[in-house]
Each structure stands twice: as C-alpha cells, then as structure tokens.
C-alpha cells in the first residue's frame, strides 16, 4: 500500500522489470557453473571428485557389497534380543504411538503432520522390502491404518486435544511397563532390550528426565543465593568439562559403589542415569540463555502484580524463556540422540552395539562396511527428521526473526 502511494505521488516513469535471465539449461549452466575461468576450474575439479565418488559408491552398493548381513540380522538391529513370542508388546507400543501421532497430526497439522507422513513413508518402504516377514508387514499395515484413522478423527473433532496431550505424557511409563512386563506380562529383562529400540529409549528417558533438572540448574545458576549458585555452577561446569564417556564409566562403575548394597540398578538404568545427568548440564546452559533473553521489564511486571518467585517463574518467565530456546534444545536433543551410540563402549547392545556384535560373528566376516553404513543410515534419517522439525518450529515460532 505504502509503496503504491509513494509511486503515484512522485509520478515516476513506469518501471520496466529487468529482462529475466534465459532459463534454458545452457543459461543456467553458464550462470551457475562456468561464470568465470575460476569457476570453470572449480566445476571441473568438483565434477571429477563427485563422478568418481558416485560411480564407486553405486558400483559398491549394487554389485560388490553383501547386504545379506542386514537381511539376516534385521530383527536384531531393530529390537535386539527381545524374545520373538513377546514381540507383540513392542508392536502394541508402536501402535499406541501411531494413534497419538495420527491424532496430533489431525489436530495440529503443520510440523506434526509432516513428521507423521514421513513415518508412514518409512513404514511403507519397510513393507516393500523383499525380505520382511509376513507378520511384520501385517503389523506395519495395521499401524498405517491406525494413523490414518486417528488422523481423520483428529481433524473432525478437536475435543481430543487434552486427551492427546495426556496420552503423550503417559506414553513413556506405558511403554516401559509393556516392554518389561512388571508382573502383568512375562518379565523381559533389560539385558534383552537392544537395537534401535534401546537407542530410542535411552534418548527419550534422558531427554524427559533431564528437563526438570536442567530447569532447576538454570534457575539455580542465576540465583542470588551464593551457595545455590556456586553448587549449580560447579555441577554444570564439571559435567560440561569432561567427555561423556567418562560420565558413562562413572555411571557404570561408580554408581553401584556410591549407592551401596541398598539400591541395585541394572546396566541400562545406569546408562540412562548417566545420560540424564549429562544432558541436564547442557540443557541448563541452553535454558539459561533463554532466561537471559527475557527483558527486565517482564520480571518487574510480574513482581508488580504481586506474584511470588515460584509463580513468576512458572507463569511469566519460563514459558517465554523456553520458547526462545526451542531450536537450541532440539539441536541438543539431536546431539544426545547421536551420543546414545556411546553406550556401545560400555557394553550395552544398542543399535551400534548390536552392529559391533554382528561383525565379530565369524558368519558375517568382512561385512563391517555394510553393517555400520546401515547404522549410520538409521541415525541419518532420524536426525534429519528432527532437524527438519526444528527448522519448521523455528520458522513458525518466529524465534530467529526477532
């Protein structure tokens, strides 16, 4: 509007748009690849490298490699040694998640919808893989049907909003109970949990449990009370100063020592505790960044309204602070998800640990590349999904814009 008014006032001669560049293939090539002799050399060098890499990769992937090792160990890689006759419990968990994903994508659409359709794409690809057994295909088809049904319900009725949120909140305990049994079903020990399932579980547990701890540490670090502040700083800097692997070793070797005989916890839980303590320190720093970005006026306004410290934090400051650091937190969570592979060093059988066990099996000699590339691919897909979601969230929240 403004622009038009200005133009009409000045009586400028009508502007003619510059001629559009020829959009032919040759024009594009000239503009993007051969615009100067420097660029031409660059193109030739990179072109040669890319050609050699792609040719060799295709040659290797389709002709030289032996993907039978993945086919034979597919179940092992995904759920570890979880007993076959109890596998339905894992499927029930997945179906519950599918219901929630379908509902959420129906209600909120946007990013959630994209992620859900992406998951469906993965299911469909797995169904189409030739070596997948019939049972798995049926379960996956049920999952897809459930997602679609839940999506339709979600779009029609938004009264499920609160139910869905509660469902997400209850998901982790339900999954844990289903997987381990807890007296209701046959007990399946954590030593049998493994593969990608374990990777996901460790990451999710670390992220969820580190959250309250991280918030408390962040607030503690900004507290005016010196003892609380120095203990928070000490904890955060100590954890951030040492490699994750040492913390995992502390959790594996020293936790039983420190807790004494009274409390006994198994390997997997120890790893989860280690990851939670580790994540909390990094999360605290992220949240502290968010707290610092809140202008003073917000604190003062809250105080002027007569809110006490707790209310001020929970209702005024934290919601804004957390919103501001969502992208940073998703970045951290991607890092934690990748770092879960470190439990392979302390002897757990997560996705990478299973991969390591497979290549030490004499039957699959010389298939290191295939196994580890598969592991890398799984991580690549999930990390990309998360960073895609983070980018979209960032845009929709408008965080980066201000």
């Amino acid at each position: 509007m403004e622009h038009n008014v200005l133009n009409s006032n000045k009586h400028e001669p009508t502007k003619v748009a510059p001629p559009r560049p020829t959009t032919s293939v040759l024009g594009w090539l000239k503009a993007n690849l051969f615009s100067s002799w420097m660029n031409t050399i660059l193109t030739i060098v990179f072109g040669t490298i890319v050609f050699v890499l792609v040719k060799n990769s295709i040659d290797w992937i389709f002709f030289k490699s032996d993907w039978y090792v993945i086919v034979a160990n597919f179940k092992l890689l995904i759920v570890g040694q979880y007993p076959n006759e109890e596998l339905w419990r894992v499927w029930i968990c997945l179906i519950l998640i599918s219901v929630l994903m379908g509902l959420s994508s129906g209600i909120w659409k946007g990013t959630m919808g994209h992620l859900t359709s992406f998951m469906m794409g993965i299911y469909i690809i797995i169904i189409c893989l030739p070596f997948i057994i019939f049972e798995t295909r049926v379960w996956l088809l049920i999952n897809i049907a459930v997602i679609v049904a839940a999506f339709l319900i979600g779009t029609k009725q938004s009264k499920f909003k609160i139910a869905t949120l509660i469902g997400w909140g209850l998901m982790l305990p339900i999954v844990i109970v289903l997987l381990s049994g807890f007296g209701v079903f046959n007990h399946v020990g954590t030593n049998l949990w493994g593969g990608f399932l374990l990777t996901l579980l460790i990451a999710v547990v670390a992220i969820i449990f580190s959250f309250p701890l991280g918030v408390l540490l962040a607030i503690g670090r900004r507290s005016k009370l010196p003892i609380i502040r120095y203990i928070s700083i000490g904890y955060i800097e100590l954890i951030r100063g040492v490699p994750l692997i040492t913390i995992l070793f502390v959790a594996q070797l020293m936790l039983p020592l420190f807790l004494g005989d009274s409390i006994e916890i198994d390997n997997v839980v120890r790893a989860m505790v280690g990851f939670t303590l580790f994540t909390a320190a990094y999360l605290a720093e992220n949240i502290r960044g968010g707290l610092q970005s809140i202008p003073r006026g917000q604190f003062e306004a809250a105080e002027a309204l007569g809110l006490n410290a707790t209310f001020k934090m929970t209702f005024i400051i934290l919601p804004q602070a957390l919103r501001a650091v969502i992208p940073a937190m998703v970045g951290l969570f991607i890092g934690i998800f990748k770092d879960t592979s470190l439990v392979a060093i302390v002897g757990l059988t997560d996705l990478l640990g299973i991969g390591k066990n497979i290549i030490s099996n004499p039957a699959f000699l010389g298939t290191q590349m295939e196994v580890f590339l598969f592991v890398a691919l799984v991580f690549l897909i999930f990390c990309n999904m998360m960073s895609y979601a983070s980018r979209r969230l960032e845009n929709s929240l408008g965080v980066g814009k201000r």
Partner: protein
Amino acid sequence: MSKPSTSTPFWRDKRIIPILLQVVFAVIVVIAGVFLITNALTSLRQIGISFGYDFLGKMASFDIGDKLIEFSSTDSYGKAFIVGILNTIKVAFIGIILATILGFIVGISRLSTNWLARMVATVYVEIFRNTPLLVQIFIWFYAVFLGFPIIEKSLSIFEVFFFSNRGSVIPWFDITSATLVWGILLLIGVVLSYFAWKLRLKQQVETGQKRYPGYFAFGTILLALGIAWLLTLEAPFSISTPEISKRGYIGGYTLSPGFGALLVALVMYTASFIAEIVRGGILAVSKGQVEAAKALGLKSPTILRLVVLPQAIRIIIPPLTNQYLNLIKNSSLAAAVAYQELVGVGITVLSQTGRSIEVISIVILVYLSMSLFTSLLMNIYNKYSQLVER
C-alpha cells in the same frame, strides 16, 4: 493480652528466608554427599581396596602401541598416564588444525557462487553432522583402516604412501645435524621479517609511496634461510621414505589404524560443524560491507580475506572454541578403537587395579584443565580480534 506484633515472623522475613533456604539446600547436599561417600568407602573396604594414589608408582604390566615418549611394560602406571595424556594432546592438536582448515574450506564453499561446490559442501555437512561420531569412527576403523590388505600387499600411492591393516605410512622428515641451525635462523628470519613488514608499511602509510612491505618481509625470510644454507651447506632435514620389510615398515612415519581412524573421523565430523559456524559468521557480516568493498574495486578473494573474514571471525570465535573443546572431549572415543589415549589408558589401568575412583578422578582433572587451557587461549585471541570501540 498480647501486644499487636509489629515485626514479621522470621519465616516470612525477606532477610532470613534466603539464608534459611541456603542452609537447607547445603544440608541436603552435604547429607547426600556423606551418604554416597560412606557407601563408597564401605564397598571399597569390602573389596579390600584402600583409597589412595600410591598405585601410580607401581609397575604397569602393559604396553602402549602409540607413544610419543619411551614407554615399556616395566614402567609405572603414572608414566602410562603421561603417555596417554600426550596421545590425547597429539590427536587433539593435529585434529584441531586439520578440522579448522577443512571446516573453513567447506563453510566458504557452502556460499560459493558455483552450484556444484555449494551442493557438494551441503551434502557433506548434512551427512557428517547427522551421523554419530562413534559410528563414523567405527566405519573408518573397522571398514577402512582394518580393511586395507595385509602388509606384504600394501596399497601404495607412488610407492611413497603405503596403506595396510597394520597402519598407514607417510614420508617423514628426519632430523639432521643442520636442523637446529636452520630452525634458529628461520625463527630469527620470521621475527625480523615481521618488523621489516611493519616498518615498510608505516613508511608507505606516511609517505604515500609504494614501499612493498610484503616483498620485504618475504625477502628477509629468504635471506635468513640463505644464511642458514651458507652456514651448513646441507638441507634442513632429510626425508625418509618408507619401505616395506617382513616385520613392518622401515622409515617414514607410521600411523596406527586406531590413530588414523580417530583422526580422520574427528576431523571430518568437527569440520562439518565448523563449516556451519563459518557459514553463519560470513552471512552475519552485513551486505553493505561486501558491496562497499566491491565498489572500491576489490577482487572477490581479496574481499573475503580483507573485509569479510576479519569481521566474521569475531562472530565465529566463541562457537569455534566450543567445537575445539568438543573435539578434545570427543578424542576420548579412541577407547573404542584401541588408540591408547588418556581414557584408553585409564580403562586399562582401572581393569588391572580396580581403582575406579582414583583413575576417573585423574581423567576428569586432566580434561578439566585441558578445557580450561583451551578456553583461556581462545579467550585471549577473542579479546585480540574484538572490535575496538571508543
């Protein structure tokens, strides 16, 4: 009748609440600490180990493959730790230099006008940033470096670089009697050339005439090297090219598979993060700066070097420091590929002696001091490169 109270009760007194809170918090922390430590002490007593660092003087009955100083299995645990620390520093130092170079190249390529360069850089970043470092290390170690043929059938490039599953070997410099003289003169030359450059530049600024500071600086170094040549009449070092024998490589510098895999993986992984930081830093330099430089008639490499990078560096340094610290910490993953750095040595010592608390406390202390030292260095550089304002 009680008189109306004018003072607030102590549990609502703003001056007392904070103190009370802190006391409660401190008591909780202390109780938790005491609980943990007494537990640890009792369990240690049950196993029959008393706390103490005297084990460091005992004989370590293991050998370390990669070592920068002499070490044999008859040396003490303490010395094993020093070898481990040196190995950590070695991989971190080389890794930081290479990752910085690669990261800057990739980061700048991501903004290139050349479509192919941009694409290659983007794909590189997306792949290496989104897969776990440990998986990458395993791929390099098990599938690449251990996948090389046996030593008799080593792959070779120009018969100078050899690759086998026992390690890779590259030509290396051998110190001769002339090395010291060359080194000293090179150092003197560099210092002198810096002053020559400063002087000529000052003259050029004052008189407005061309004084060629660059040529003068370069000439000073050449002169110093020429003197070195006249003094010694030898090359500064002899190059030893590797050869294959029955027992292993002779000459050259051998990289063990573990070290090679760790170094390559660390460099590739960290470079992908550095590339993103560099890209962000360059994008943050305002467009007007580039346009002004173009209007002055500078060529685009000159713009990058003299206008964009100096300003981008200020934005780049803090996150870059973080990446360096990450690289140092990530080098601990060597424990998984049999390169005996600090954590690797620590695990071996721990399994031999059972001194978990002592070993882990040493490891934590060393990493903390390395992190502090790196942050200190980078902070100094950061101060130096900051914008000087009024």
